[in-house]
């Protein structure tokens, strides 16, 4: 009884249970859903969302929001082929360059939020617009098929039958959980998210932490972009667009408060899987687009009612 109550009050665990439940029901009732290959595929898709949502989780924990995630994913996917030098057989130089750019974009976001005191939502939205403009310049004129071996390996290989993307996601998850729960900076992010003034007066530097935070968000979005590129073998303008809303949705479905200061990446992980599962379920249903949209919304709402209750006053 006590144990059951503890679970109900632990959003990440609850969300995990929800995933298990949905998988069980869908696996029993839908042909092909429960196949190992299919579940593995779902995880692979969830990995992209999960990695993109890693940065988003941190930003939301600190009370901000990053609307440039989609644009950063697109930028990395488009730029990687252009920036992978032919002389580098491993492809790691291109990867490093592109990730550096993603981090740079994040740093710019952070700088705007701290030095210019622009609300993060505005800063990152403006950044997304800005990047769109850059893409108009860069895209469409040159080859964007990926030949970079590192990225192809990431997107296509399956060491021990596990997709490399999922392996990467596991690594990212481990780092994220370490960062949030085992490193001082995680506690500082949370404190800044819950009460920036008190945190500042306790010696937590807003400036430094905001910069680090948005840089991390840029980094993870870039990583997601690379994975996505590897999985699709080709980048195109708009490839990152779907990941903006899904990254936010995964965070919130995982029980992290959008107002900051409360939550954990442990919730985002099942949140991402839940979203992918819902999309897959809706895809196989044969209904008109309108009805499918209604079903998707209702499912999200239903899942939210089970998992996302805010603490009572």
């Amino acid at each position, binding site marked *: 009884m006590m144990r059951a109550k503890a679970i109900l009050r632990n959003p990440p665990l609850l969300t995990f249970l929800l995933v298990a439940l949905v998988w069980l029901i869908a696996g029993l009732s839908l042909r092909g859903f429960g196949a190992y290959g299919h579940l593995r595929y779902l995880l692979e898709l969830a990995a992209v969302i999960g990695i993109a949502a890693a940065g988003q989780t941190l930003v939301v924990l600190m009370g901000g929001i990053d609307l440039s995630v989609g644009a950063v994913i697109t930028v990395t996917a488009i730029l990687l082929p252009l920036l992978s030098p032919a002389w580098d057989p491993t492809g790691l130089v291109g990867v490093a360059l592109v990730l550096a750019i993603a981090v740079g974009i994040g740093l710019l976001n952070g700088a705007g939020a701290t030095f210019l005191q622009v609300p993060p939502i505005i800063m990152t939205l403006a950044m997304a617009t800005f990047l769109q403009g850059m893409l108009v310049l860069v895209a469409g004129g040159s080859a964007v098929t990926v030949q970079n071996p590192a990225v192809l390996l990431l997107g296509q290989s399956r060491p021990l039958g596990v997709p490399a993307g999922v392996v990467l996601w596991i690594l990212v998850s481990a780092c994220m959980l*370490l960062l949030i729960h*085992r*490193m*001082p900076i995680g*506690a*500082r992010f*949370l*404190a800044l998210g*819950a*009460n920036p*003034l*008190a*945190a*500042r*007066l*306790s*010696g*937590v*530097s807003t400036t430094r932490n905001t910069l680090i935070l948005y840089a991390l968000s840029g980094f993870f979005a870039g990583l997601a972009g690379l994975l996505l590129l590897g999985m699709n073998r080709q980048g195109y303008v708009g490839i990152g667009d779907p990941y903006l809303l899904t990254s936010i949705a995964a965070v919130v479905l995982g029980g992290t408060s959008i107002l900051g*200061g*409360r939550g954990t990446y442990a919730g985002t992980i099942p949140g991402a899987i839940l979203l992918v599962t819902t999309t897959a379920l809706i895809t196989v249903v044969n209904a008109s687009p309108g009805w499918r949209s209604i079903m998707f919304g209702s499912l999200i709402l239903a899942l939210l009612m089970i998992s996302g209750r805010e603490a009572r006053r």
Partner: protein
Amino acid sequence: MTDAGPLLEARRVFKGFFGNPVLKGVDIALRPGRVHALLGENGAGKSTLINLLSGALAPDKGAIAIDGQPISRLSPASARAAGIAVVQQELSLAGDLSIAENIGLGAYPRRFGLIDYAALARGVREVCDLVGLTEPLDMPVADLALGRRQMVEIAKALFRKPRVLILDEPTSSLSAHEAGVLGRLIATLRDRGVAILYISHRLNEVQALCSHVTVLKDGGVTADRSLAGVDGEGLVRLMVGRETGELFPPKPQQRVGKVRIDVEGFSAGLVRDARLAGRAGEIVGIGGLVGQGQEDLLLGLYGAIPAKADRAEIDGRSGLPVDVAAANAAGMVYVPADRKHEGLVLPHSIASNILLPSLGRLARGGLRDRRAEAGLVADLARQLMIKGDVARPVQALSGGNQQKVALAKWLPLDPGVLLLNDPTRGVDIETKREIYLMLRRFAAEGRLVILASSDTPELVHLCDRVLVLREGLVAAELSGPAITEAAIVGAAMGVEQGEGIGRKTVQ
């Protein structure tokens, strides 16, 4: 004592949070024309009880009765309609709304369904005059200092012309002068037949104002009696349940330590051109009416607001800290008055709050050392007698215990200079004693304590030296036997008195 029946009663009420009982069958009856004191240590359940009385919470068992009639589901709105007004311990104001709009909230005068701003202004002006609020009524509450907000909160309660007025630590951030105004006001209301419930940890106020007392302890009522013939010590005995010693530790013979802080021509926020020096082993008090720059002085020294000084020397290093981190590095720490907004991260656990400033120090190899952290937290919790599970969110703690956490978190840093802004605000008398002892001990260990306080006795009995601020200027600097309540209040009000030295106001 009147014979009239009680206007508002709690009858054998029970209330618990998440299975932890707080009130276990408590009775209280508020009668017209009587000022009723509610005493109890921090976390005894006083605020919880008044939340039940005012409909903000529903009792688990038992009933609230108005005019002798048990009410089944009391809501804040219906309580207000029945003439019950509360001055909350935690302020209930909306920052962006004006003073007038806050005072009227929930009881706006209307014309044709619209708020009648003319009537509102009249009514609000009236209560503001009563409590001595002189700020323009259109000023957003967020622009007010904490003490002034407290006055708005009181005005808000009066605005409803209550039959029952409940005051939960109304003076905790008020200086002696404002507290005096409030005291006279309470007496007037009592004489008009209002039933008043008064909660305070300042026992001298209780003694001066109240005629009846209810004491809460361990979830039950341990005393419910008239205060006639009870003296100060008796009151303390009633509350603590045993004989106690002096509240303030004796002031030691002044030992001269090294200079810890020496600033000249210091300006920050309201404060202009101040001179401040402090040596190791001293407790330096900062007094004055509410909002005369005391907070800015501390924040400026702490690097939290822009400040400049002609000359500054802090622990041998010259120059003011550029930011909070630099101040911490220089061994300076700050405990804010508004613990809810500035001192604590309310939704986070006691442990997280305590650990926040020392996270980096305790980490090993970039990772947090759970064992060391747990040890430290347990240590501090024991030292400061913070009871219960340290994994609880701080917002579930009573006000006084929150204050302890806000103080405790700095101790691991072994600070050389403590900047304290009303550190005993809302703290019960036993804890106060502990805090005073602790501050003395800190001083004896060679630290410098700078203590801004709205509690004048604290300045008088605890501090070795007191600066009195008025309109951002140092109006007087008192030391030794010259520190008296009269001298402090006089200097604060701008009345020539005592041996006030230092700069005088030029206006």
